């Protein structure tokens, strides 16, 4: 469900959501919620809010869906607890590690909001037990949002794609059933797998699950393919340089998908007229 949002509409939505949010917290007449700083990227033009080396058009970077639990935390003016899960979730010790970057990027894009990122490197295949371990980790940390880098281990183990989809859908719907938001991140792109049918179908399967479960998806695969194509002609250091770039950009890309997803119209909280116009039929 890739949504195409025109710049003008996005600004409109942004204002409307901001208004709706402040309306919803009218009982606390304090500061209105600052709308996340999401302004107006054309879906096909490189998103200027990203740093230059990571600049990818929105349409290549994410598909959107509502993030109700995060929105609720924002309305209640409390810290947003994020659980980052995935194979390259490094430690909080290193300043350059992904969880630290994610926390920084989220706090920068949502000023006045405290964000706590915890990370867990759940290794193994979700089809063979990692999904169970993820449930235990979610129960242990009880976050508002799970940012889940999914699929690398399963794809490398070449598990059956249907089984993988089923397991992923089960787990995502379980997390959502407990009022916790999910953002999925698909595996990274690398040129040596570009012609691998299995891998293509695998990435597609994640996209389908994200759409059917209505959770935002960070299309790391598409984004990195775009960056790779753009880098052609410049000196290239093979797949490893691209992987390094993708790794450095991931926190920004995830943050962008989250902030833009927060602008998704919320049918129950924003009955304001004109909202439905924001969503073009695809």
């Amino acid at each position: 469900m890739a949504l195409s949002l025109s710049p003008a509409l996005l600004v409109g939505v942004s204002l409307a959501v901001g208004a709706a949010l402040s309306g919803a917290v009218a009982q606390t007449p304090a500061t209105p919620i600052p709308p996340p700083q999401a302004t107006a990227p054309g879906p096909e033009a490189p998103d200027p809010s990203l740093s230059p080396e990571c600049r990818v058009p929105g349409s290549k970077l994410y598909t959107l869906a509502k993030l109700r639990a995060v929105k609720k935390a924002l309305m209640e003016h409390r810290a947003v607890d994020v659980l980052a899960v995935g194979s390259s979730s490094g430690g909080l010790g290193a300043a350059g590690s992904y969880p630290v970057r994610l926390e920084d990027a989220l706090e920068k894009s949502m000023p006045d909001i405290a964000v706590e990122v915890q990370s867990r490197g759940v290794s193994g295949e979700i089809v063979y037990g990692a999904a169970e371990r993820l449930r235990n980790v979610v129960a242990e940390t009880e976050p508002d949002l799970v940012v889940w880098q999914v699929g690398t281990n399963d794809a490398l183990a070449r598990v059956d794609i249907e089984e993988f989809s089923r397991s992923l859908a089960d787990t995502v719907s379980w997390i959502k059933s407990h009022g916790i938001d999910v953002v999925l991140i698909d595996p990274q792109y690398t040129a040596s797998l570009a012609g691998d049918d299995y891998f293509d179908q695998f990435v597609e399967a994640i996209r389908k699950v994200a759409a059917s479960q209505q959770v935002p998806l960070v299309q790391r695969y598409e984004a990195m393919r775009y960056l790779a194509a753009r880098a052609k002609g410049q000196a290239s250091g093979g797949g490893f340089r691209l992987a390094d770039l993708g790794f450095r950009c991931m926190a920004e890309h995830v943050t962008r998908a989250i902030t833009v997803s927060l602008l998704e119209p919320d049918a129950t909280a924003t009955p304001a007229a004109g909202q439905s116009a924001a969503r073009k039929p695809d």
Partner: protein
Amino acid sequence: MMREPNAIDFWRGFALITIFVNHIPGNVFQDYTYSQYGISDAAELFVFLAGWSIGIAIHGRGGQTEPAARTVLRLLSRMVEVYRAQLVITAVALAMLAGAALALDNPLLVEWHNAGPVFTDPIQATVGWVTLLHQLGFFNILPLYVVLLGLAPAFVLMARIHRGLTLAMSLSLYAVCLVDEINLPSWPSEGHWFFNPFCWQLLLVLGFLAHEWQRETPAFLVWRRRLMPLGIVLVALGAVLAVLHLRPDPLLVPEPRLLFTFDKSYLTPARLLHFLGILLAFQSVFGLIQPRAPWLVRQLAALGRNSLAVFSVGSVASLAVQLVRFSTGGGFLVDVFAVGCGLCLLAFTAWFVEWRSRSPRPSSSA
């Protein structure tokens, strides 16, 4: 000389093969391992038998108990051996992942099995993996074993004074860590150890005490037999739960939640109970197999006699098979060939270790 095949070595060999196959996710043989049909798996069996073997080791030929100092030194020296093995196989695994990533020009491979931080955050992760605080996926049993061997002298010596007290201490440690969710941390990645040594020590102690009781308490054997039907019921129940994917929802169970969930890290009560059920249900199976399949018994017992070497080679071999499956695309024939080669390698390892201990080693005089 090599000891004759016995039930302990046989089941240890069986556990080693099961672990080898289960560490190659997605291969065609995986569905035929018993781990798929219960809520506990071969890890429990491996740790329990390690405890049992400690019991065997500390008694001399005549059955007399060796001096306490000797037992402590024996356990510490084993701990050093296991730690050394863990360092070697982790280093080899990291090099295999990095080498395969270079050869296939595929950076995904260095993210596999939790290896990512070693390459993206090398300064901290190097300290992490050498101190066992950073563990690669599937390379997490030996770190558990290192800590268990460190704890073992306390329990083994306490058991000389009072066995019941030893069990009570072990159970208390288990219960406290389960209720308060106490575990060793992982580092630099956030999180904790895949196998919580403070909970899993209970299985080692149970294995050790079971050996001692078996030697000296006739009532133990009587009750073991009497409880066999209960074991069969537990195994059947476990099979139903596993096949139907029924398990408690960790966000819905009451606190303390680890008393109710099926969590491997903390060896939660359901897993422990299921494993005890397996022990009871299968206690006389070795006696049935031995006369009917002597070759199989000899092979598995040879693996079990040399468990550390076989486990280490098996860990590296299972990673190799995963890399082969990935690069070839997998499939039935690849699985049969690669897993088959792996099993032959395990058998060769056991033979080779015993050959080395029989033969004069030229390297030792160099």
